C-alpha cells in the first residue's frame, strides 16, 4: 500500500494583496457560481503552483523533489503536509507526518525553546510527560542547552533550524517532509542531520526531500521527481532523472549572456567567496574546454602568460554541486616559455558520478606557490546510466584495467585478505 498518494492535485494561488483577497472571502458553493458569472475577474491574477500532479510512494521510500525556484516543490510539500488544501484533487497520507518546511516549523517567537518543544510535541500527539523525556535529547542534538529557556525570537537562524530539526527528529515521524532545511546549519550539524536521516531511512522511514543540492539528493534518495512550473517533467531513478535535469540545466545555462539561470555556478562562487586568486607570477589567459565525449573524457587547453617563473605545474580540478573538491588532473613540473605559451591536456575519462561539476584551472610552482587559480564560469555535465562507483565506495572511479589471467608474479605480492 502506498503511504503517500496525490491524485490529480492542482493548487491555484492568487497573487497580489488587498482587494484581490475579496474573492477568497466568498464561501463555497457561491464561489463556483460567481466564478461562472464573473469568469474574467475571478481568474485574474491567479496561477497554478501545481497542475494535475499525481504521485504515489510506498512506505520506506526516499524521494527527492527537484526543480528550479518556483517549480512547485514547496507547495507540493505543504499540500502533502496538510497545511494547505489542494484546489482540486485529493491527498492520501497514511502515517504520522512531520514537516520541516522551513526553519521555523511553527515555533512561536515569543516562547522559549523549551515551551516550543512541548508545544510542537503536543501538536503531534505527544503529552508533556513524553516530551519531558525528550527535551534533553533535543537540546543535545541541537546543541542549544544554554539557550533552552530563551525566547526563540532571540535565536539565530542556525539555532532555530537546529532546534526545529532536532524536535522533529524526536517525534518519531513515519513520513518526513524536508525542504532545503539542511542549507542553514553549519557543516557539523548538517553531517549529524544526514547521519540521522540515514538511520531514519534504514529504520523504514519514508522521506520526501526537497533540495537544490543535487549531491545531497543523490545520496539521500533512490527516486526523484523533477518539477517545473507545477508539472512533473520526469519521475524515476535518481541517477537517471538527475542526469537529465543536469543536462537541461546546462542547456539553460548556455542560453546566452542574459540568462538568469547560471545560479548554480554563481551561488557556488558566492559561497566560497572568490573564484580567482593567486600570486600572479604566471597568469592564465584563456582556457578552452571541450564537451565531455561519450567516454566522459575531455580535452583542455590553457594559455598562459609568464614572467620570471621558470617551471610550473598545470592543474585542472573539479568541484561538485555541493562544493566538494573531487579531484584534479595535474601535469609534471614543466619548463615555462618566457612571455607565454599554451598547454594541452586530454583527460581519458572523468570517473565521476552523474552530476554537474565545475572546473578549476590553476598554475602552481613546484614548491607549491599558487600563481593563478581560476574557477571557471562553466559547468561540465556527466551523465551515466548507472553510478560510476557502487554505493559505499566513494565518488570517483579509479582508472583501472582488469583481466582473468593470473599474473605470474601475483604470488610475490604480499598476501592481504584470504578467505577462510
Amino acid at each position: 500500500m502506498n503511504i503517500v498518494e496525490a491524485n490529480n492535485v492542482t493548487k491555484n494561488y492568487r497573487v497580489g494583496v488587498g482587494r484581490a483577497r475579496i474573492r477568497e472571502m466568498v464561501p463555497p458553493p457561491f464561489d463556483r457560481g460567481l466564478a461562472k458569472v464573473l469568469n474574467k475577474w475571478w481568474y485574474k491574477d491567479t496561477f497554478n503552483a501545481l497542475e494535475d500532479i499525481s504521485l504515489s510512494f510506498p512506505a520506506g521510500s526516499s524521494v527527492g523533489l527537484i526543480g528550479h525556484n518556483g517549480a512547485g516543490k514547496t507547495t507540493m510539500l505543504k499540500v502533502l503536509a496538510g497545511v494547505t488544501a489542494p484546489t482540486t484533487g485529493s491527498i492520501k497520507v497514511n502515517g504520522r507526518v512531520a514537516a520541516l518546511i522551513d526553519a521555523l516549523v511553527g515555533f512561536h517567537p515569543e516562547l522559549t525553546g523549551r515551551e516550543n518543544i512541548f508545544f510542537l510535541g503536543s501538536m503531534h500527539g505527544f503529552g508533556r510527560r513524553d516530551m519531558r523525556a525528550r527535551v534533553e535529547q533535543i537540546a543535545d542534538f541541537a546543541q542549544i542547552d544554554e539557550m533552552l529557556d530563551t525566547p526563540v525570537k532571540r535565536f539565530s537562524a542556525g539555532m532555530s533550524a537546529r532546534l526545529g530539526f532536532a524536535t522533529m527528529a524526536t517525534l518519531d515521524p513515519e513520513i518526513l517532509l524536508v525542504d532545503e532545511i539542511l542549507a542553514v546549519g553549519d557543516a557539523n550539524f548538517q553531517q549529524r542531520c544526514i547521519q540521522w536521516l540515514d538511520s531514519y531511512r534504514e529504520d523504514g522511514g519514508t522521506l520526501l526531500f526537497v533540495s537544490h543540492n543535487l549531491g545531497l539528493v543523490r545520496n539521500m534518495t533512490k527516486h526523484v521527481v523533477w518539477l517545473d512550473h507545477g508539472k512533473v517533467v520526469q519521475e524515476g531513478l535518481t541517477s537517471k532523472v538527475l542526469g537529465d535535469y543536469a543536462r537541461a540545466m546546462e542547456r539553460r545555462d548556455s542560453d546566452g549572456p542574459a540568462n538568469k539561470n547560471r545560479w548554480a555556478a554563481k551561488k557556488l562562487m558566492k559561497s566560497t567567496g572568490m573564484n580567482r586568486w593567486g600570486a600572479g607570477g604566471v597568469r592564465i589567459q584563456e582556457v578552452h574546454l571541450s564537451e565531455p565525449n561519450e567516454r566522459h573524457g575531455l580535452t583542455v587547453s590553457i594559455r598562459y602568460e609568464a614572467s620570471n617563473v621558470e617551471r610550473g605545474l598545470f592543474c585542472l580540478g573539479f568541484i561538485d554541486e555541493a562544493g566538494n573538491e573531487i579531484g584534479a588532473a595535474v601535469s609534471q613540473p614543466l619548463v615555462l616559455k618566457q612571455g607565454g605559451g599554451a598547454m594541452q591536456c586530454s583527460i581519458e575519462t572523468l570517473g565521476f558520478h552523474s552530476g554537474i561539476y565545475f572546473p578549476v584551472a590553476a598554475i602552481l610552482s613546484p614548491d607549491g606557490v599558487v600563481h593563478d587559480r581560476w574557477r571557471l564560469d562553466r559547468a561540465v555535465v556527466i551523465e551515466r546510466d548507472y553510478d560510476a562507483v557502487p554505493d559505499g565506495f566513494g565518488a570517483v572511479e579509479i582508472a583501472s584495467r582488469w583481466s582473468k589471467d593470473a599474473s605470474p608474479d601475483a604470488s610475490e605480492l604480499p598476501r592481504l585478505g584470504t578467505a577462510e
Partner: protein
Amino acid sequence: MLSLVRRQYQVRYRQSMVGLAWAIIPPIATLATAMLVFGNIAGLDKGKNSYSLITMAALVPWTFFASSLTAGIPSIVSNSTTLTRIPFPRAALPLGTIGISMIDISISMILFTVMAYTIGDGLPLTAMWFPVLFILELVLVIGVVLLGSAINVFARDVKLAVPLGTQLWMFLTPVLYPLSTVESPGVRTFMLANPMTGVVESFRDILIHGTAPDAQLLMPAMIGALGLLLLGSWYFSSVETRFADVV
C-alpha cells in the same frame, strides 16, 4: 487544542511587567471611570442598589464579551506561523482565545461577589442562573468570533474595526447605565433588539434583583446567538482550508 490554549495564554502576558494583573485591570478601570463620570455627575446613584454594583453586574458579561472579541478575531492571523506549518483544526485558535477569556469572566465574577458582600446584600439565590446565562453568552461569542476571525483573514478591516466596534456596542448596550434609565421608546426598542442587552440586563436580574431571567428580554439574544453560531461555524468551516494560503 489544550496546548494551543496554553500557548496563547503563555504568549498573552509575555514581556509584560505585571502579567496576569491585566486580567483584573480592565474591569476595575472601566468601573472606576464609570463611577466617576456617571455615578456622581449624572446622579444615577439613587436606586435601591449602589451604582457601582449595578455597573459591575453588567461588566461581568461585558468584559468577557469584549475580551473574547478583541483576542479572538485576530487569532487566526496572529498565529499565521503555526497555521502555515502545522495542520490542525483551525477553529482551535479562536475557540482557544475564548477559553482564555474565561479567566476574565471568572475574575470579574469574583470581583462582583466581593463587592456584593461588602457594599450590597450579598448574592441572591437566582445567581444560580449564572451558568445558563453564561452558556447563552458563550454561544453568542463563539458565533461572532468564528465569523469575525474568518473574515479577518481575508479583510483585515475587521481587526482594525474591533476596538471601535466593541466601544460603540458597549454604548448601545446598557452596561454603564441600567436599561430603565433609557426613556426614548425608539432607542429602547433598538437597544432591546441588541442581543447583548438581554444578556447584560439578565445578569443584573439574577445577580442583583434576585429575579429569574426574562424570556422575552432574552429572545433577541437567543435568536442572535443561535443564528450567529450557525452562520459563524458554517462560514468558518467552509473557508478554513484557505487560511494558510491567505494569511
